């Protein structure tokens, strides 16, 4: 049974590699023709990152798609394998492919001169793995792959929004500032703020757990009738798990961020429309602007502007 899954995932990965190579060549070629200059490596990496996200989603949604397409789903359920083991057999090769492609991407990214653990890379990594697991948890949502695709995309966006909310809350707790002052740009320099990075990873994992747990717990009762009943059961398990995970992640973030809190009076504050950029990002756009620089560990520099 495992061998069948590994072969299937191997075939899908090969097709994806060929498709990605072809698409990238096409995009690079087209860009070169239109702009007259070769596409910079950075843009190629970004395009590959997008493809990787699509592939993660596809792998996550595909565990039962081939079996269903080949009308072998019922036969699969008659095999002398426990439901939990069956789901694990489906998950393992796909997770391995996701990790392998991620490592290859990280290698390419670092070869292009970028740091794979800085900037938005940390966010991309977390979002990439989350997309796979969320898609996997929704792989039995509907018989139609397109519907599953949209559902997974919506769930993923909701999940990222929730994670962002908690991380930004943690950031505001850390620096004792209103949450509305914290902008999306807080992701950019996660790698320079270890406590925020660690709490962000914790938040991502905690909020991902309900997706994974719900599919594993509910799969025991999976049957071939329309998915409505299965989805209802999964939702009934998922919602309380998500609420518990949210409470836990808020608690953990609060604890971590508060224990590494820094006084905002040491931050850069600009009360005018123009702000002095000391190498970081704006926290808020609004009635005034407030800029804050992360304590740069390489050159500790704090300044207050009036």
């Amino acid at each position, binding site marked *: *049974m495992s061998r*069948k899954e590994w072969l299937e995932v191997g075939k899908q990965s090969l097709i994806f590699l060929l498709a990605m190579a072809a698409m990238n060549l096409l995009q690079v070629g087209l860009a070169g023709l239109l702009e007259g200059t070769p596409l910079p490596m950075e843009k190629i990496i970004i395009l590959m990152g997008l493809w990787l996200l699509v592939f993660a989603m596809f792998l996550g949604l595909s565990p039962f798609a081939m079996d269903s397409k*080949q*009308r*072998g*789903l019922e*036969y699969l359920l*008659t095999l002398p394998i426990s439901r939990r083991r069956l789901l694990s057999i489906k998950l393992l090769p796909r997770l391995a492919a996701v990790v392998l492609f991620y490592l290859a991407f990280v290698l390419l990214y670092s070869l292009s001169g970028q740091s794979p653990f800085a900037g938005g890379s940390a966010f991309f990594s977390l979002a990439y793995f989350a997309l796979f697991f969320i898609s996997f948890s929704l792989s039995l949502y509907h018989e139609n792959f397109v519907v599953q695709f949209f559902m997974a995309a919506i769930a993923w966006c909701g999940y990222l929004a929730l994670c962002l909310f908690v991380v930004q809350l943690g950031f505001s707790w850390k620096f004792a500032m209103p949450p509305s002052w914290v902008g999306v740009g807080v992701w950019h320099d996660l790698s320079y703020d270890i406590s925020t990075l660690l709490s962000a990873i914790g938040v991502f994992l905690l909020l991902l757990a309900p997706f994974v747990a719900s599919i594993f717990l509910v799969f025991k*009762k999976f049957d071939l009738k329309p998915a409505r009943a299965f989805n209802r059961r999964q939702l009934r398990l998922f919602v309380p798990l998500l609420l518990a995970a949210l409470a836990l992640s808020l608690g953990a973030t609060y604890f971590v961020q508060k224990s590494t809190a820094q006084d905002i009076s040491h931050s850069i504050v600009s009360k005018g429309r123009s702000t002095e950029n000391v190498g970081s990002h704006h926290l808020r756009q609004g009635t005034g602007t407030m800029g804050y620089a992360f304590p740069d560990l390489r050159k500790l520099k704090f300044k207050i502007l009036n």
Partner: protein
Amino acid sequence: MSQPIIEVRDLSFGYSQKKVLSGLSVSFAAGEWAVIAGRNGVGKSTLLRVLAGVLLPDSGTVIRSAETPPQKIGFISDRLSLFEEWAVGRAIDFHCRVFAAGGFDDRLLRRLGVGGRARIRDLSAGERAILHLSLVLSQKPSLLLVDEVLHMLDPYIRELFVEALIEAMAPSPRESGTTQGAAVITVNHTFGEIERLPDRVLVMEDGTFAIDETPEALRGRMKKVVGRQSLPDSLPCRFKRTEGDYKEHYIYPFREEMREGHALEFQDIALSEIIKAFIGGGYEQKRMA
């Protein structure tokens, strides 16, 4: 009856809001052929799927004997579910590996001229049924579950299929050291040439078994009265069919004393017709409820 190889106690199962099986209890012994009949949607296939482990019950228990672990349960559904893109040879390798089958007997496939390279999607329904049966027989099953497959087979393949089922029911040495044949449970709507074969007939109604008897007992307890006359209310009429003046009454449960009490001709009827009368009576009761 010998020790049951599979037993179900207070089984309940429902799809969404609809309860299909309700407090059902039944057991099946080694070497017996039980036929389950009933109207469409009553839960026959659901029961088979619960026995096969494809569905898990909402409540109740399924107790398997030591001779009936999951590897020894063979299930052939009306969907004839297999991986369609696979070749026959690959399906055989896979099945034997997963079920730890000692060997595969391709006699039946050879009789139909089905080779290892043929794609499953290119096989006819009959060929797929025989392939599926061959796969399941390779497990040396203690329990064979066949869901509404017989009616879709042509007469030649049906005969092959039935002969293979009978062969599986013959006592043979088991790994546990006992000698016993497989229990066969089929869901049938028609009987035809297998009329005389089942040891037991079960008719399902309202989520449980309304009838559980041997065919001989059932034939003795249901009779038909035809003609233009109406029957007295004292006769228990399970189902009545009227076409103009002509009436068919199905009397159940029939007792021999009824022959003396009424000047009526009580006809013996075939198993197919008995089942039809039960199902028809069920629909009538549903209509009147």
